[in-house]
């Protein structure tokens, strides 16, 4: 199947006073139509910057230094700013962690969504109003007419996030980049938002790139998952493969660190040390210093993301030598 979005060897660097920070170092993945793809990792692994990079919205001093981002086989990095405008916010849209800071507090929700619809389509004010109501209904907001007149502060966090999602899908988005969409919400609201996202996928024919640190959220709705570490993907595969047949020591450590009832009374397995700061370009595996199974080669040679076992399962680790044909 043809990929909707293909990120190929993406590099994003930040030039700071402390030096060059290598935030994303060769991220590659593909997203098919109607797929929910999870990008998981701890803070500082480059997952949010990748999401912003796809829309060419990396804030300065960050810059995309190399790579390709193919959307419908067209390289977004080669597109003009006008072409990007037609894609950004319309065909590819993004929602963020904290809806209360992304909605404008000075305008009603109705005003904001109508303006957005009219910028991206040729709808008249009346048509835009109708469409906005429809969108609010499709994200299961109660009393859409009332929400149209409400200011963001009058709504709860969960409702604000629904308004954000409605705005993201209103101009007919094909790809939704959801950056930690449920992290700021309570668990009961989180499960509402997650089930909404997975309904939208089938009803509105939308692909979702879900950026999160929570493996539980991934288990809930993702078809495929990539685990990122220090700006690289270390393991990628179908959700079940990542959760139950994980191979990379980092993925194993990440899953073992989640407290469960079976571990009561025993110490939790934690990953020693902390994430590298990205200030130096590493020759070897970025996980080398924290890895319990590190080999000599890990220090000097960067492992490639290679297919292991199942067709869809990829791992970047020297412990798993590539299959010989």
């Amino acid at each position, binding site marked *: 199947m043809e990929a909707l979005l293909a990120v190929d060897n993406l590099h994003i660097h930040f030039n700071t006073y402390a030096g060059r920070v290598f935030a994303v170092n060769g991220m590659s993945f593909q997203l098919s139509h109607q797929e929910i793809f999870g990008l998981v990792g701890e803070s500082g692994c480059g997952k949010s910057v990748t999401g912003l990079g796809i829309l060419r919205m990396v804030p300065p001093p960050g810059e995309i230094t190399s790579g390709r981002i193919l959307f419908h086989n067209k390289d977004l990095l080669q597109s003009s700013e006008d072409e990007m405008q037609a894609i950004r916010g319309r065909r590819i849209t993004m929602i963020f962690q904290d809806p209360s800071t992304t909605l404008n507090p000075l305008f009603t929700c109705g005003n904001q969504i109508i303006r957005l619809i009219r910028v991206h389509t040729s709808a008249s004010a009346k048509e835009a109003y109708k469409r906005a109501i429809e969108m609010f209904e499709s994200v299961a907001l109660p009393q859409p007419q009332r929400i149209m007149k409400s200011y963001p502060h009058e709504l709860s966090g969960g409702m604000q996030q629904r308004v954000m999602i409605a705005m993201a899908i209103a101009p007919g988005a094909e790809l939704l980049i959801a950056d930690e969409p449920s992290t700021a919400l*309570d*668990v009961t609201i989180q*499960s*509402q938002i997650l089930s909404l996202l997975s309904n939208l996928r089938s009803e509105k024919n939308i692909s979702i790139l879900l950026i999160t640190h929570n493996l539980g959220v991934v288990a809930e709705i993702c078809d495929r998952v990539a685990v990122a570490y220090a700006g690289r993907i270390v393991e990628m595969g179908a959700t079940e493969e990542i959760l139950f047949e994980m191979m990379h020591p980092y993925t194993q450590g990440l899953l073992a660190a989640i407290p469960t009832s079976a571990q009561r009374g025993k*110490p*939790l397995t*934690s990953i020693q040390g902390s994430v590298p700061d990205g200030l130096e370009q590493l020759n070897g595996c970025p996980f080398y210093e924290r890895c319990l199974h590190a080999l000599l080669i890990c220090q000097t040679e960067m492992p490639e993301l290679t297919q292991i076992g199942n067709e869809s399962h990829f791992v970047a680790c020297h412990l798993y030598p590539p299959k010989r044909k």
Partner: protein
Amino acid sequence: MDQKPILELRDLSKYFISNRGLFTRTEKKVRAIDHINLTIHHQEAIGIVGESGCGKTTLARVILKLTPSTSGQIIFEGEDIVLLSSRELHSRRRNMQIVFQNPYSSFDPRFSILRAISEPLIRNTTLRGKDLIQRAQELLDQVDMPGEILYRYPHEFSGGQLQRIAIARALAPTPKFIVLDEPTSALDVSIQAQILNLLKSLQNNLKLTYLFISHDLSVIQYICDRVAVMYLGKIVEYSTTETIFNGGALHPYTKALMFSIPIMDMKLRQKRIILTGNVPDPANPPSGCSFHPRCPFAKEICTHEGPELRVISGGHLVACHLVISPSW
């Protein structure tokens, strides 16, 4: 159970009064915590779970008297601390400490780590000079941080490291009771595991009692002996961790909360209840049982009569009309 409890809350309430407008006389009461009864024994870890706005942080602050209570008693080691003057309170405070959620906002950025840790030591002990520095280094050692960081400043540390230092600071006056208010929610899972391991071993070594506040049920399940589930300022269910997490939860809210944790196990997922709606406005709570508008099993009685917290079996308390005690 014959042991004397370290802390007992009796009918503890905290209402916030909000006046609407300059000229209206109507006073609105926000019942942040509403008639809470809770007993905590020595060396126990009690978990408080609930969604935002349910009053769990207010409860923590009221227990430590950082916020004055409206009514009720807080009995710490057999003495009602509600009535104490602030001077008397100071001598009791060394036994009760708190660790907050965000370590970056609980340290003064202009204070070195030494100054931050020595403040409670100077206040509560007679240690000065070299002894003070030595004690500060011991404290850092207890939380697995090197002693040489004493002269560094909070911004130089990562969230996990700073949270360790916050724990060291809380341990400085050798407390018996520590309130942990979401100590790991700002941290990544791998760092969270390090902190949880540390808290667990400190509890064993120093014989500490914890009141652990969290919205993360998996953390509570790992570290706590008993769990109190709060909804809109009230405890709706209270039992041992085993009972609550191994299918013994009886209150519909507890069940819904358990099922809304994103879970890895795909088989368990069918049985879940997804709650609709939001937590109601505490200034304007629903009549009867405050959970009834969201409860899938609500009956007629739930709309006008609030259920009492009743004993269902030894040590298991539930406030729900649908749960009938066997001895009733």
